[in-house]
């Protein structure tokens, strides 16, 4: 007899955790399927292990079990992600899809927690108003969002207060506070926790930025600065981004939403359970359940007329395509990601970059979004610019050395033992624009061990990405010089990778069922009762990190689902 569930949530990450919590608190019995394992208390407690979490990427899906292919354009043959494939030792574990298991991407994330600015929701209109209607190339598929900042403000507030975000507000109901972000759109109230203590090199960064006329402020962080609800105050161990948190200071759906949902008694979690098909009725217009493989590869089918698919922009679109839910051909289109601009500096005094979370840092937001100054370099949209004074262990540090320096021998040993303790980073991230040229579909050849087709990514860095990377490189170099850095260098541009764990857009939300995949509540236009949620809904990517916005969207979806049931 086929099993039936009141609701099924696939993936218990940032979005799925929130929706599972809201549904179970309203009395709905939820069955959650997650393809990853439940991470044990032992793993959380003793996570100070760079080999396990950085070198071996133990939290993230590996290509051997979760193949993903990539090609720069349609003329090329897609290969397993070349920046992560091959014998171990040549891989970039953080340029694979994000962590799996209850907690999802919020297991490994750094905790940069941003509201989008008002302008982010109107990127297309603002670019065309300012730079002309031909500023975006003919392949552009950019659209404005179907909702605005004011629609999401109450949900951003819920993320900050229900889950826990630390920071200093810059604009409460229009009243500016120079200690906070001078560019943030108005908020109803401040943060529930004060900002974190910053890592050592941040003072120097902040002072240099102020001398250059910027208005630095502290990064809002999904890391608790004090005990708050289920979170404990951060202890600044420095094993943060890419690691589990041993004090539960880092906001992870594993310890916030999922734990709260479990306490209702209405949540059942099946880990190591891999959804492979979304089942529909004969008309194809209504969801009827989910088919999945258990750890041994046995097929199970669970019936439900409410299914929430929340397993990341990439796997969400793969699952839709593999299930044949793509009548308008829009699934997988509009792939977007960030090109990271990582720069490193060597400082004259000890910066001890291994202390504190990644986000115990300052931000320059003067050049973000439509705030990017007029320029002759073709930069249409800006980027957040952040100090990275902490969270750098030695193995990771050895992977980012000054170009031209021999990476071995006495000179390398001298340099590394002298300078590891003096490093810091400066970072920005350029949002790619949606284009007809960049999309995901099913790989025609590569399959996983269950015979399911791999996702194929077609993407390359655009002229605009390169122009923006060059522009911000100069800005970061000037800041480094003002800081008195003794060395400054950038990672190779453009990046070799095409995954940043900030992938969005592949199941775009919109009001018109002809040119979008889901509505603003995440419900499929094509198949009723099926919600496909997360960053995949984004019409455009911001210069800010995507997580808080997709968390806000998850609260919005949950409210809508509960109104209907």
């Amino acid at each position: 007899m086929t099993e039936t569930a009141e609701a099924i949530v696939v993936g218990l990450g940032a979005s799925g955790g929130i929706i599972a919590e809201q549904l179970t608190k309203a009395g709905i019995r939820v069955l959650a399927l997650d393809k990853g394992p439940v991470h044990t208390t032992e793993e959380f407690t003793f996570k100070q292990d760079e080999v396990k979490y950085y070198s071996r990427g133990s939290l993230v899906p590996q290509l051997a079990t979760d193949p993903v292919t990539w090609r720069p354009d349609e003329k090329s043959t897609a290969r397993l992600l070349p920046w992560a494939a091959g014998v171990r030792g040549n891989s970039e574990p953080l340029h694979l899809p994000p962590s799996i298991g209850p907690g999802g991407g919020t297991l490994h994330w750094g905790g940069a927690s941003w509201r989008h600015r008002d302008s982010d929701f109107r990127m297309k209109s603002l670019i065309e108003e300012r730079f002309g209607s031909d500023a975006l190339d003919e392949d552009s598929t950019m659209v404005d969002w179907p909702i605005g900042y004011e629609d999401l403000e109450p949900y951003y507030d819920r993320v900050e207060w229900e889950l826990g975000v630390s920071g200093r507000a810059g604009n409460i109901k229009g009243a500016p506070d120079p200690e906070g972000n001078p560019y943030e759109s108005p908020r109803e109230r401040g943060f529930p926790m004060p900002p974190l203590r910053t890592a050592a090199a941040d003072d120097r960064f902040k002072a240099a930025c102020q001398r250059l006329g910027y208005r630095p402020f502290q990064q809002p962080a999904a890391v608790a600065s004090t005990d708050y609800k289920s979170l404990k105050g951060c202890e600044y161990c420095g094993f943060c981004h890419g690691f589990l948190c041993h004090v539960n200071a880092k906001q992870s759906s594993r310890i916030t939403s999922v734990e709260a949902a479990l306490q209702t008694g209405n949540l059942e979690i099946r880990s190591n359970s891999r959804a492979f098909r979304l089942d529909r009725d004969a008309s194809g217009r209504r969801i009827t359940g989910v088919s999945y493989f258990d750890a041994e590869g046995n097929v199970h089918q669970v019936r439900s007329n409410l299914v929430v698919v929340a397993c990341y922009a990439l796997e969400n679109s793969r699952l839709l395509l593999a299930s044949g839910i793509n009548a308008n051909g829009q699934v997988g289109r509009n792939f977007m990601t960030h090109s990271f601009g990582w720069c490193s500096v060597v400082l004259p005094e000890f910066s001890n970059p291994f202390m504190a979370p990644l986000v115990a840092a300052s931000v320059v937001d003067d050049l973000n979004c439509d705030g990017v100054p007029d320029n002759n370099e073709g930069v249409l949209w800006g980027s957040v610019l952040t100090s990275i004074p902490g969270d750098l262990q030695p193995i990771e540090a050895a992977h980012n050395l000054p170009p031209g320096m021999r990476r071995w021998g006495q000179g390398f040993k001298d340099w590394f033992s002298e300078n590891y303790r003096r490093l810091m980073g400066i970072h920005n991230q350029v949002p790619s624009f949606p284009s007809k040229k960049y999309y995901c579909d099913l790989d025609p050849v590569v399959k996983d061990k269950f015979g399911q087709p791999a996702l194929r990514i077609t993407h390359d860095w655009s002229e605009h990405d390169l122009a923006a990377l060059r522009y911000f490189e100069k800005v970061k170099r000037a800041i480094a010089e003002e800081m008195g850095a003794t060395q400054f260098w950038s990672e190779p541009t453009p990046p070799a990778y095409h995954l940043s764990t900030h992938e969005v857009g592949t199941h775009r939300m919109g009001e018109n069922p002809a040119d979008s995949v889901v509505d603003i509540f995440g419900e499929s236009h094509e198949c009723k009762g099926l919600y496909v949620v997360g960053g995949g809904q984004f019409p455009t990517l911001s210069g800010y990190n995507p997580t808080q916005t997709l968390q806000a969207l998850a609260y919005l979806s949950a409210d809508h689902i509960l109104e209907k049931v």
Partner: protein
Amino acid sequence: MPAANEATKVRWVFLTETEAETVDAVCARIFPSGDGKPGARETKVINYIDRTVADEDEALRRCYRDGVTALNALTSELYGQRFAELSDERKDQVLERIEANSAVESTGAPQGPEDEGLLATFFALVWEHTIQGMFCDPQYGGNHEALGWQLVGFPGAQWGYNAEQMRPGFDSKTIPIKTLEDLRRELRRADD
């Protein structure tokens, strides 16, 4: 050079004596010793590699097996000696050629492009594992007595840092280094 005596023989889980000798010689050119500070030898990187490769998949194990063979074939061709027998200067020259991916072209040795790629991949892999073996938690067999962490001033596995330690210019070498085993011991003691 670790001598091929009984004591070392029982130490290797995966590597043969020749493989251990060769790989160890490569590691020792990546993080050399002899300046009074710990290098790959003192931190026992070769132990880390042996244990790691033993647990690895066939592709990676083959890369070590075939890489060592190809490296010694190359140095035999060039100098009539195994890699480990060369002077440090010659070892560095060989590694530089491999890194420049030009070893085959310049020697004209009868090797196909696979061998060329193999040596470059092999060296890249040994480099990765040397970095890991220098700075891993000692539970993995490398970073012996946390000497790698000591070298660079990394205090290792800490529960956290206080405001004083987080001030610019603080000398992190004043913080006692901890390993995961130290953390486990602390918790066990707290439980008692």
